[in-house]
C-alpha cells in the first residue's frame, strides 16, 4: 500500500497532471453541476427487455464531469474501490481527452470496466469516499459514469487493445464457472502464460452477468466484447460442461490440468420457507431471470414460456429484486410491487435502480414482510399475507432492524410472486472434492490473502467463497487467486 501511495504521488506530480490541475481553479471545478446521464423514457423503455436505460455520456459531457475532479493529494475515492482502481489517473486522462489511455488505466485493475461502470454500487464505494461527498456534502464526481464512458469509448472506437500475454508455458489450469471471478482469473492467468480453460455449465458464457442481470441494465453485447477480448488473448471456453458430472476433477487432472479456480457462484436460490411458498406461481428470482435473460422464455414462440403475472409481487430490496420487478413490468404486468421488510433507506439495491424502478411505475410496499401465500381454487397463488413492520435498532448490517407490528397483517391479491432474498452456493462442486474445507453456510473456506483452499491446487473466489459478492469484489478475488496460483505453480514446476 505504501508503494502504491508513492506511485500515486509520483503520477500526480507528472507535468501533464499538474498542468491540468492548474488550468482550472478548484473554485470553478466545484461550481460545475454533476452530469445527468441521458436515459430512455420510462414509457418507452418498459416496452422492451433489451432497451438499455442509461445511454452513456458524450465525450463533452465526460470531459466536463472529469473536470469536476480536483485531483486530490489524498485520493480517498481509491479507498472506496474494492480493487483500488487508480481513479484520479483515469479520470484525469478523460479530462485531458485521452480516452483510450483512461480505458487502459482501468484495464490495469479491472477486466470488465464496461460492466462495472454499469452495475457497481458506486454510491456506496468510490463515490461515497469522494471529496465532494465527504467534505462538501455535494454530489460526488460521477466516477461510475466515467468508467463506463472510457470502456464504451474504447469498444466503440474499434481500437480495443488486446493485452499482451507471456509466451505459453504449457501448464494447463482450469476455471470453473464463467462469471466475473473466473473471467478476471482467466484474464490474468493467460497473461502469465498458462493454458486456461473456462468450464461453464450453461450454454452461455458470462455467469451472473448473462443469466442474472437483464439487458436493460447490462446488454449482452457489452459482456460479449469482454469475452471476445479474452478469447483473442487465448482463453479457451467450454460450454455445457458441468465439472463434477460431465467430467470429474480426477478426469481433468488426467487431461493435464494442474490447478483449479472455483468460481461457480451462488446459483441456489434462498426461500423464506413460509406456508404456501410451493404454490404454483411462486418462484425464485433466479428461475425467473434466468428463464427470461438466458432462455428467452418471455418470447411468444418460447417452448417453455415464463409466467406473466398481472399483479406481480417481488420480495426483496436488492438489485436482483429490482431486476425481477422491472422485468415483470416489461412483460406486461399491470401492477409490479416490491415487498420489502425495511424502508427505502435500508434497501441494498443501487440508488439508481430504485430510482429507475420508481420512474417505471413500480409500487413499493416497504415495511411489509410475507408470512404466507394463499391459493385460489386451482391451487395457484392468489394472495399474499403481509406482516407490517416498523424499524427498530440497527442490526449487524448497520441498518435498522425490521420489527413486526403485532397484529398488523394485511392481504393483497397477486397472481405471481418472485422471491429475491438471496442465494446460496451451489453444492455440486464442493461435494465432488473430498477434503475441501467448507463453512457451515456451504461456502469454500480459503486463505483470504491467497484465495487458496484446503486443497493446495484448488483456489476459489466470488460468491462460492463470500456467499454473495458484488461483481467488482468477485473480480478482485479472481485476480488475487491468479497471482497466488501463479506463485504456487512457479514453485511447484520450477517455472
Amino acid at each position: 500500500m505504501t508503494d502504491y501511495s508513492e506511485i500515486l504521488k509520483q503520477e500526480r506530480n507528472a507535468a501533464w497532471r499538474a498542468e491540468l490541475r492548474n488550468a482550472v481553479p478548484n473554485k470553478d471545478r466545484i461550481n460545475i453541476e454533476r452530469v445527468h446521464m441521458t436515459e430512455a423514457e420510462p414509457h418507452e423503455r418498459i416496452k422492451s427487455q433489451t432497451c438499455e436505460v442509461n445511454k452513456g455520456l458524450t465525450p463533452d459531457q465526460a470531459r466536463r464531469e472529469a473536470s469536476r475532479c480536483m485531483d486530490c493529494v489524498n485520493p480517498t475515492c481509491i479507498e472506496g474501490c474494492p480493487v483500488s482502481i487508480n481513479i484520479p489517473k483515469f479520470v484525469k486522462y478523460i479530462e485531458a481527452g485521452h480516452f483510450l489511455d483512461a480505458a487502459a488505466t482501468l484495464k490495469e485493475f479491472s477486466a470488465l470496466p464496461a460492466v462495472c461502470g454499469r452495475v457497481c454500487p458506486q454510491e456506496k464505494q468510490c463515490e461515497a469516499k469522494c471529496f465532494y461527498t465527504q467534505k462538501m456534502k455535494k454530489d460526488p464526481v460521477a466516477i461510475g459514469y466515467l468508467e463506463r464512458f472510457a470502456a464504451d469509448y474504447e469498444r466503440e472506437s474499434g481500437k480495443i487493445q488486446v493485452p499482451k500475454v507471456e509466451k505459453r508455458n504449457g501448464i494447463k489450469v482450469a476455471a470453473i464457472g464463467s462469471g466475473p471471478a473466473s473471467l478476471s482469473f482467466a484474464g490474468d492467468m493467460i497473461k502469465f502464460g498458462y493454458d486456461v480453460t473456462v468450464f461453464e455449465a450453461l450454454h452461455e458464457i458470462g455467469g451472473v452477468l448473462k443469466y442474472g442481470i437483464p439487458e436493460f441494465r447490462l446488454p449482452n453485447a457489452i459482456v460479449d466484447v469482454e469475452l471476445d477480448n479474452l478469447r483473442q488473448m487465448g482463453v479457451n471456453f467450454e460450454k455445457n460442461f458441468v465439472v463434477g458430472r460431465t467430467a470429474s476433477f480426477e478426469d481433468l487432472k488426467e487431461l493435464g490440468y494442474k490447478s483449479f479456480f472455483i468460481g461457480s457462484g451462488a446459483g441456489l436460490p434462498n426461500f423464506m420457507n413460509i406456508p404456501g411458498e410451493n404454490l404454483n406461481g411462486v418462484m425464485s428470482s433466479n428461475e425467473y431471470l434466468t428463464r427470461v435473460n438466458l432462455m428467452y422464455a418471455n418470447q411468444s414462440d418460447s417452448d417453455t414460456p415464463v409466467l406473466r403475472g398481472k399483479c406481480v409481487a417481488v420480495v426483496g430490496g436488492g438489485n436482483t429484486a429490482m431486476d425481477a420487478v422491472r422485468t415483470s413490468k416489461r412483460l406486461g404486468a399491470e401492477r409490479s410491487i416490491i415487498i420489502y421488510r425495511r424502508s427505502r433507506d435500508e434497501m441494498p439495491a443501487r440508488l439508481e435502480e430504485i430510482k429507475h424502478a420508481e420512474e417505471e411505475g413500480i409500487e413499493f410496499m416497504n415495511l411489509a414482510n410475507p408470512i404466507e401465500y394463499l391459493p385460489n381454487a386451482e391451487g395457484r397463488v392468489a394472495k399474499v399475507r403481509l406482516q407490517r413492520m416498523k424499524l427498530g435498532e440497527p442490526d449487524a448490517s448497520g441498518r435498522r432492524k425490521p420489527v413486526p407490528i403485532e397484529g398488523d397483517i394485511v392481504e393483497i391479491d397477486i397472481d405471481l410472486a418472485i422471491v429475491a432474498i438471496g442465494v446460496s452456493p451451489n453444492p455440486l462442486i464442493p461435494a465432488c472434492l473430498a477434503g475441501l474445507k467448507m463453512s457451515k453456510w456451504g461456502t469454500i473456506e480459503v486463505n483470504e490473502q491467497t484465495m487458496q483452499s484446503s486443497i493446495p491446487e484448488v483456489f476459489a473466489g466470488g460468491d462460492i467463497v463470500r456467499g454473495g459478492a458484488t461483481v467488482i469484489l468477485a473480480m478482485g478475488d479472481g485476480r488475487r487467486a491468479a497471482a497466488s496460483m501463479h506463485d504456487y505453480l512457479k514453485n511447484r514446476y520450477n517455472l
Partner: protein
Amino acid sequence: MINLKTRFFGFELKNPLIVASSSLTADADKIKAFAESGAAAIVLKSVFEEEIINEYNQIGESKSASHFDEFMDYFDYKIRDQVLASYGRLIKAAKEVSKTPIVASINCVSAGDWLQFASQVQDAGADAIELNLFVMPFDPTRRAEDTRRFYIDTVKEITRRVKIPVAVKISSYFSDLAAICHELDGEKLAGITMFNRFTSPDIDIEKEKVIEAGTLSSENEYLLPLRWVGILSPRLKCPIAASTGVHEARHVIKMLLAGASAVQMASAFYKKGPAYIGEILKGLEAWMDKKGYESIGDFKGRLSLTKAANPALYERAQYLSSFGGYAGS
C-alpha cells in the same frame, strides 16, 4: 395397583413427570436416558429466536460480509433455516431412541414469519409443541396490551397452523395473571405450564463484572407455582403443569393436590441425573399407598382454591401475625 396415568399435552401420560426444556434435553443420548428412567414426556431444549439474532450479528461483524448489504439483507432466514434443520434432526433422533412423547419447545419474542416454525417441527415428528412465551419487558415504549396481543395472536396463529397439540409455558409476570390464563384457556390449548424460570444477572464484586447467576432453581421456589396452580386449576378447562422448584416427590404431591395434572422438572435432574425419576415415582407411589389413593384422579385438586378447607391462604398476599414473634437471629 397404583395408577399414575394423567393427561397433559393433549395425550395420556404414564405418570405426571415431564422432563422440562433445558440443555439436558438437547441431545439424543440424554433423552434416551430420561426415557429409560421413566419420564412421561420430554420437552426438548427451546429454539430461541435470540440465538438466530446473535449469530446474524456475529456474521455481520465479519469482514467479508460487511461490505455487501444484499448478502446480509435476509441472511437471518438462512441462519433460521439452519437452526430449524438442526432442531428437526434432534426431534427425529429423539423419536428414534425413545417411545416417550417428544415435545418441541419454541421461544418466541416476535411475531411474523417465525410462526411457521411450528409446522416444521410438526413435520419433523414432534408429538406436541410447547410455546415458551416471554418477552422481557425492558422496552419503555412497549405497552402491556402489545405484549398481551402478541401472546394471544401467537397462540392463535400456531394452533391454526398445526394439527399436533399446543401447550404454553408462561411466566408469573402479569398484573392480571388469572385473566391472561383465562384468555389463553379459550384457545384450545393442550396445557399451561406455570412458570418459566429465567436466567438472572449477578455481579462479581472482585472482578467488578456482571455475570450470569446460578441457573438451577432452589426448593422453596415451588411456592409461587403452587399458589397459582391452586388458584387457577379449578377455573381453567385446560390442564396445568407445575414447574420451578419441584425437586422431590413431596413437591410433586403438593402440586397434584393443588390441581396440577403434571410437573416439569429440570434442576433436580442436573443435580441427581435421569435415574432420579424412578426415586420420585417411588416416593409418589409410597405416599399414595399410605393414603389409600389408587389413581392421580383420586386426589388431584383436592387442595385447590375451591376445595381446600382454608382457601383464603391462596389469595392472601400480606403477612398478618405469622412473623409476630420474630426476634431475629
